[in-house]
């Protein structure tokens, strides 16, 4: 196991180098002169020259890359063209906003996905199963930015209810934008978590069905174990192993999905920072943020792989 962890960590090093090369080359792959683009088309020559100098764009590419990566390793991702602040502090608090959003969404998705999946699997082909899987299919097919807009309309702007409905007059329960308070968090979390909940539900269902057909489930029943315990202890513990992988990948995927969700709800996280910076042609910030998100994703995947390996004791540890 220890050997495996070391090997997996070593394997990620070339990946991280590749990622950094790709991110680094973004600025140089843009057609035209990056300095001119950042300065703006009508910018005076000295200003363009100034930017070029400041970003070291006159050096040979390998030198530029090495200095970029060297700085990055020390936590220096360059400076924003817009604000002049260093990219690390631009990301700063936004990092945690995105992580929070992804974590909450994952928790909600796991909770809903697991329950729905187990209900579906234990009542195979029932009305509940069919409807849950249909809902999951919809959840999977919905663009999350559209779901976000609809949620804003229904639960932030709200729908006026007819007067005979007791206690509530409209449904404007939550806030349409921002991040922090409960009222602000609910809608973005649902928006981002729905797709994952659908995937986890489907995965849990098929995994449970697979496990329930196994010999050791019959063994448990033959021992006189209650059906509820057969399902929730004997079966679920095994069924969760493949689900863990999906959950880990989903968490990573949500970091990417956060771009859209943050944009819809004006959540000031890394996703929104990327989009705003792309529009402002602020390449250092775009590069820095993408690099951070990719790094986070790689680390999450590493943890998932190791966890999976640990949980799945049936895999030979050669």
């Amino acid at each position, binding site marked *: 196991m220890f050997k495996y962890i070391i090997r997996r960590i070593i394997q990620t090093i070339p990946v991280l180098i*590749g990622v950094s090369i790709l991110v680094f080359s973004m600025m140089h792959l843009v057609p035209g002169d990056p300095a001119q683009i950042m300065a703006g088309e009508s910018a005076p020559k000295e200003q363009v020259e100034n930017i070029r100098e400041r970003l070291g764009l006159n050096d040979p590419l390998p030198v530029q890359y090495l200095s970029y990566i060297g700085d990055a390793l020390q936590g220096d991702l360059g400076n924003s063209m817009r604000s002049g602040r260093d990219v690390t502090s631009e990301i700063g608090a936004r990092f945690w906003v995105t992580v929070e959003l992804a974590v909450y969404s994952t928790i909600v998705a796991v909770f809903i996905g697991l329950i729905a999946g187990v209900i579906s699997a234990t009542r195979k082909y029932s009305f509940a199963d069919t409807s849950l899987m249909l809902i999951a299919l919809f959840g999977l097919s919905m663009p999350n930015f559209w*779901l976000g*807009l609809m949620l804003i309309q229904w639960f932030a702007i709200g729908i006026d209810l007819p007067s005979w409905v007791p206690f509530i007059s409209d449904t404007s329960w939550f806030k349409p934008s921002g991040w922090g308070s409960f009222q602000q968090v609910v809608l973005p979390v649902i928006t981002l978590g729905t797709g994952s909940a659908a995937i986890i539900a489907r995965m849990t269902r098929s995994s449970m069905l697979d496990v329930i057909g196994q010999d050791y489930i019959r063994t448990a029943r033959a021992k006189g174990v209650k059906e509820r315990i057969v399902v929730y202890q004997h079966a679920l513990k095994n069924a969760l192993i493949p689900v863990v992988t999906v959950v880990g990948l989903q968490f990573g995927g949500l970091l990417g999905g956060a*771009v859209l969700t943050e944009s819809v709800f004006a959540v000031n996280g890394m996703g929104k920072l990327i989009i705003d910076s792309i529009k402002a042609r602020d390449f250092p910030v775009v590069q820095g943020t993408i690099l951070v998100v*990719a790094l986070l994703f790689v680390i999450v995947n590493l943890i998932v792989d190791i966890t999976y390996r640990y949980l799945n004791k049936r895999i030979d540890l050669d």
Partner: protein
Amino acid sequence: MSHSTEHIDNPRTAVKPPNPRFRNWNIVLRKLKKNKSAMIGGFLILFFILVALIGPYITPYAPQTQIMVNKLQPPSFEHWFGTDNFGRDIFSRIIHGTGLTLLVGFFSVLLGATVGVLFGIIAGYYGGRIDSIIMRLMDILLAFPGILLALAIVTVLGGSLVNVIIAVAISSIPVFARIVRGSTLSVKKLEYIDAMKALGASDARIIFKHIFPNITSPIIVQATLNIATAILSASGLSFLGLGAQPPTPEWGAMLSDGRNFLYNAPHVALFPGLAIVAVVLAFNMLGDGLRDAFDPKTKE
């Protein structure tokens, strides 16, 4: 199952290399026909293709016609889906956008699948160093979660529908490469591949004549499901303003317009979204059905 298919299914009893083109298609089609959800998906796709081909000639309004006095009208008999902030008929715009959506989905998957399949076969067939180089490259592409890779590529290439296709295609390469590599490895183990090699068949011949036809089913399934994801990604990019540019009647871009009018004209955001859901749902349903149909474990 008839005796002949049984015989062909088992590589050990087959003297000649199995002919996969023959093998499963009848069974797969029969299974597919019995799968209601897959059939609904398939017919929906046909319907959307038809709408894309014929629709633009019979829409009540031109997609670009702006009638400012009619702006932000709720759905009515004249404007089934209402009008947008420029007084354009949303129903007509959605119909005109159908073709765009299907083309983006189809071409980005075609492009991504072609490159990915090639990578996957080469990696699986040759193994060794080529394999690890290709797969490490794929790992690098996979290190960008979700839409982020496509986003980065579009940032570099600039926002346009063609660039969206390229970006989505590139981000779908690794999925195909991984699946195809796995299938290639298992096909390579079959005895007759060794026999072909011993007979002196060239690598290219073995790859295209014997390996590729044996791994088509996972590719078809993945391609169908990937069209769904591609459409979601592409519309997402357009929604962010990085894809189709106004006044193109692209659904994601239309949604982006609609977000500003949620208070007084929510229908502007509602209908393009429903259209996306319907198309993506159709491909997911067909893809799920295909996967079940190709799976020898599912009963007829």
